[in-house]
């Protein structure tokens, strides 16, 4: 009797489980501009997000990108040092900039 109950319970449990193993999310390469400074992007950005996040912000001012770099450092704790902060901002502005130094119009 006990055995049957345990078996029934096991059946119930297995019916409940929708995922029996870790769901894998595919990996896509979002290519950003190649440049000697791409290493700075590799070592600071990819901990948390794909380059899709860079490409999908649209073209932005230098001030905008600098603020984003600081937000990644201060809110999301990306390990960005002072040197990389400058290089990452320059890189982002060079390839994904809108030609303006300042935000706004």
């Amino acid at each position, binding site marked *: 009797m006990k055995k049957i109950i345990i078996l029934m319970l096991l059946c119930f449990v297995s019916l*409940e489980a929708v995922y029996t193993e870790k769901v894998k999310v595919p990996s*896509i390469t979002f290519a950003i501009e190649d440049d000697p400074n791409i290493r700075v992007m590799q070592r600071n950005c990819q901990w948390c997000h794909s380059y899709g996040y860079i490409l*999908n912000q649209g073209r932005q001012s230098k001030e905008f990108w600098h603020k984003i770099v600081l937000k990644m450092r201060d*809110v999301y704790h990306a390990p960005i040092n002072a040197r990389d902060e400058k290089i990452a901002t320059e890189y982002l502005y060079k390839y994904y900039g809108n030609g303006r130094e300042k935000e706004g119009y």
Partner: protein
Amino acid sequence: MQRREFFKISFAASAALFGSKSSAFATSKPIDTQKVSPVLFPEKKPLIVHSDRPPLLEAPRTTFTRAITPNDEFFVRWHMPIIPTPINMDTYYIHIHGEVEKRLYLRVADLKKDFKPVEVTAVMQCGGNSRSAFHPSTSGIQWGSGAMACATFKGVRLKDVLAKAGLKNSAEWISLNGDDKAVMAKIESFKRELKIDEISDDTIIAYEMNGREIPFLNGYPVRLVIPGLYADSWVKQLSDIYVTKEYQPYFFMDVAYRIPDNECECEEPNNLAKKTKPLEEMNVKSYIGYPDNQMQIQSGTNLRVKGVAFDEGYGIKNVFISLDMGKTWQQATLGKELSKYAFREFSYNLKPMKKGTLTIMAKAVNNKGEEQPFAHDIPWNHGGYKYNGIDSVTVEVV
């Protein structure tokens, strides 16, 4: 020229807010050129992919002909890169603690067994849906218009769960947290705060979406559903409900997802609003699902325009169609109202005779009398939130 004149007259009020500076920046239509990706995500049809980590998936225009969005076309938006798979449902708990009489650890099976099931059909929309319409472009993912969906959610009332734990007199706020995690341990996770006396009967902890388990990418096994509010409050993989006396400041409530706290909820890029408020209720919006832009239509044949309209819960009163760039409007036929929070289908039959390009516009009006403005009359805000401009598609009549 004539068209310009017309817009000026009908939206004199919103233009006045900016005075003469309104020409310095503008709103256009959100992008509608992005193609679905051939890379398949679990339980999803091909969708527009903005990022794989965290996954950000948007539905194409063709999704929006039906009031209910199928689970495999339902958009995806996570903030944190680590999304655990809950495999053992016997150890997946929603922990309810804080200012309660009794601390609870509820499993999904307990929700199903011990509470009254409730169904709600509601639109879920990302606050930044259609953000790509704003110029200068604002911070955040440059979504087209497909970061929205509508489903029938089944679950239990948040109120009932709180009642079971027994709220102490001191209980004022609850903060909700999901199981998704950041890479750096110090980062605050994506928490939301709700005021207890503002929780409606329609606010549920859902365990089903359109009659099936909630898909992994949409927050399996349970997510919060708050009809009428933007999706940033609909916590996915809900695992923690913390009842407090006082408001807890969180990044995603107090820094991000905020809009100007003024009449027009707008500001200028060079003069940001000093006072801001959290993004909450949605506004009236409609979207054409068929035909798609650049489609070829045979002249002299019947064309059935189809789409969806919704608002924050007053319900849709009318949808109007214009074939002359908004000079004149004709009433579309509305489908059944599934709920005041749901997508309302609309359709409009026409027979284009003249060859060449034809632009079809759709404008929704809700029961409160609010109507959608033209795309370029939407005022700017720094987060690119709440865009609800009149949609249009342009087809080729051949």
